[in-house]
């Protein structure tokens, strides 16, 4: 599986990650839905503080892959290690990884019956066992950071899509995650709102968060990504730095994909 090998090699060569610890390590990860194979032997390593953008046509398994990383989907073969903790059937490991990995969804998935503040403080209070006052203070600070401090008492239904997505990012950050996963965070947004979300994400990347982003925003990939991974049919086809990827892709399938979307 040459592509997979280059994935590992490229990570080492391009970002000089050998100095940093490995944050996410996947090896031979496979997953089936009935008779459909969604992931076919994914092998990749993501280093600490690295920002990886995953590209690929729809149905290529991008989302399934990052959903496996925080165990929203159960991978059936291979190994996944996040921050030194292997994702197995061990409940304690699952718990640990979930509280260290934040996730942002395409449709925001905010809890409609809780206020913005309630959405953000729910997990810190009940999972991290933080005192309520502390959790609320932290939540307000996070809202400040994503730029909507004045919306704390509102309900998600009263916010615009971009604001909702920023709340969702704040909700994920409230757990002090070591890794953030973004599953097409801007696909459900109106064009004028995409920028405000991307700005928050760029700030996050600059602050040194390890990030895996499934997106179709090529601008974001070019500007922020340390590495771009291209997937098709459940396999990693090609991986490399943005310049390399967008200017001189090696694989035909990558070229074809790029020609379709650029």
């Amino acid at each position, binding site marked *: 599986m040459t592509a997979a090998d280059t994935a590992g090699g490229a990570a080492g060569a391009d970002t000089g990650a050998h100095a940093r610890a490995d944050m996410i390590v996947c090896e031979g990860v496979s997953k089936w839905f009935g008779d459909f194979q969604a992931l076919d032997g994914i092998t990749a390593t993501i280093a600490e503080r690295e920002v990886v953008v995953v590209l690929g046509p729809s149905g290529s398994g991008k989302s399934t892959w990052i959903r496996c990383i925080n165990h*929203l989907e159960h991978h059936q073969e291979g190994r996944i290690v996040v921050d030194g903790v292997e994702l197995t059937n061990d409940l304690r490991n699952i718990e640990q990884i*979930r509280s260290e990995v934040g996730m942002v969804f395409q449709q925001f998935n905010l809890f409609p019956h809780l*206020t913005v503040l309630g959405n953000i403080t729910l997990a810190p209070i*009940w999972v991290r*066992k933080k005192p309520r006052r502390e959790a609320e203070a932290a939540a307000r600070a996070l809202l400040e950071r994503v730029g909507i401090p004045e919306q704390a008492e509102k*309900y998600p239904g*009263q*916010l615009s899509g971009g604001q909702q997505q920023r709340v969702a990012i704040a909700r994920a950050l409230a757990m002090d995650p070591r890794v953030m996963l973004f599953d097409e965070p801007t696909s459900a947004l109106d064009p004028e709102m995409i920028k405000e979300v991307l700005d928050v994400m760029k700030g996050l990347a600059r602050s040194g968060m390890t990030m895996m982003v499934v997106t179709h925003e090529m601008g974001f990939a070019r500007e922020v990504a340390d590495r771009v991974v291209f997937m098709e049919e459940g396999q990693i086809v090609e991986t490399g730095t943005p310049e390399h990827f967008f200017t001189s892709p090696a694989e035909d399938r990558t070229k074809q994909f790029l020609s379709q979307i650029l």
Partner: protein
Amino acid sequence: MADPHFGLERHDPEGFSLTAAVDSAPPDEPSLPVGEWLRKNLFSSPFNTVLTLVFTVVALAGLRGLLNFAFSEERNWDAVRVNLRLLFTQAYPEDQYIRVWVSVGIVVALSGLSLGLWARLSGVPVARVAMWSMTAGGLIALGVVLREPSAVSGPDGDPMRDAAGEVIRQSFGAAMGDRIWWWLAAAVLFGVGAGLWRGFEDERRRHTYVPTIPLVFGSLGVVVATLWLYRWGHYAFTGNEFVYEPDRTAALSTKLPWTVMWLLLMASWAAGRQGRGTPAEGRLKVLVNLAWLLSPFILFWVVLRDPAIDWAHVWSTDLPMAAGFVIGGGAVLYGLTRPGIGEVGRVIAVGLLAFAGFNWVAAFAGWYPMLQKARFGFLLLALAALLAPNFTGERAQRLRLVWGWAGAMTVVQYLVTMANTESTLNTPTSEFLGGFSVTLFVAVFTLIFSFPLGVLLALGRTSKLPIFRVLSTAYIEAMRGIPLITVLFFFANMLNLFLPQNMELGSVAAVTVGFSLFAAAYLAENVRGGLQAVGRSQYEASDAVGLTTVQRTMFIVLPQGLRVSIPPLVGQVISTFKETSLLAVIGIFDFLFLANRAIPSQSEFLGVKREGLLFVSIVYWIFAFSMSKYSQRLERRLGVGER
């Protein structure tokens, strides 16, 4: 979007809507001139004209039949009037009757408080009140004309009969003359209505409203006032002797309590109103809700039942046991919720659960004796220990949990002790409740018990775990497949056979258990509908932030799912209430049984059945109809069922 004059207060924040929440008031119909309205709605085509004529005749004939039936000289409405107390509380001892009034008073006070705290019923359009008034006047006039002339009464007060045995009736003119007061009432109602309509139907003033609360309280006041003014008849027990004087106003033992209730309702409403908007509002609402939750138990088991407390037993057994569970259980919970305890806590809790289960095995095998109360106590403790880690955090939170346990356990121990203590009431029947009170008892307790069970079954049926799903589905479908009456028969006759030794339930309790198990299956289906409306994305989001399954269920899934199921759940409440009538078939002295069997076998009212049954229908109808109107309103407000 919302017409501010309709609908209760929106408890829900405007931002949260599972579907588009539309608070729609019925659209105002443009009023047509009478002639045009008639042509459009009644005579638009030859076919329609025929329909109109036929059904007008049908409607008039039906009304006439009903009136002739209700006001016929052969009707014996005294059978209902005399037996009102029997119908509602059966043979509750006369000297203890104050307990009934206290119970009613508590419910009235709670209703008033809740109205004051929550309801924002701002008003009814004056034009609509005018319409009601005109309709009432018109109907009365119609009825006065339609009803057949009254019989001529003979010297003994009975109607006179001709040679063929037919009742001799007045001439039409004489009858109309006799009904002059009715004419007057009709004219006044219609006149007032028409005047108001004139004044308020135009575009500018059609949005003038009569405030609802004064309207309701005022109408109730009028009803109460008639007790003092109109000669309903004086039926009362004087020294346990039933005294029956038809030509006086209602007895003091009737009109005084109801007047007090009316005043209490207004006072508690005012109190609730005062509490609104104050900093204590939130706490007050919690208190009122708690009071509602506890009131059925306290009222039925303590106030009405008047248990004969055996203080020696209380000091020697009940109190120590309660204290043990409160303190020991609290300590166990405090220990098990230490943040770092991890899976060890869960393992210990499972051990406790095994012990709690084993107590019943031991009871079955007769290894060691234990009070049933203690077995349930251990089970509750084990469940609490299993669930507690999900609801705890820092120290203050842990202490709050322990206090919650202590409070709940105290209440449970108190109530179980009370329910287990013999009643001091001296009633001729085995149950201290009868008539409408037993109907209410069974309905309320069935709802209380079936709710948690139904929610659990719904969760089981929507669970991802196959064995839970199979078990819940099998239970729900089996229960829904069989008629309620068979379940009630089974439980009334059989439940005590299945219970552990030394445990027995009275027939009403046994039936309530069966009814609850039955209702839970239907309730589960209603809740399931709501749970399925909670999207997969909500589950994923809760998993992604690391909530446990229990936390996800309690904080995310149930709050959203139950809200959607509220309208069908109100429907479920209505059917449960109606189905309590089946108690009559298994020989419990409920409301219907008394009307159908007991009254017709009293020597004064031998065979008088239809009057009582009609009265029962009306009472059931009022309850069920108002609940269904309420549910329709909720449905509109939540935007459910709108396409």
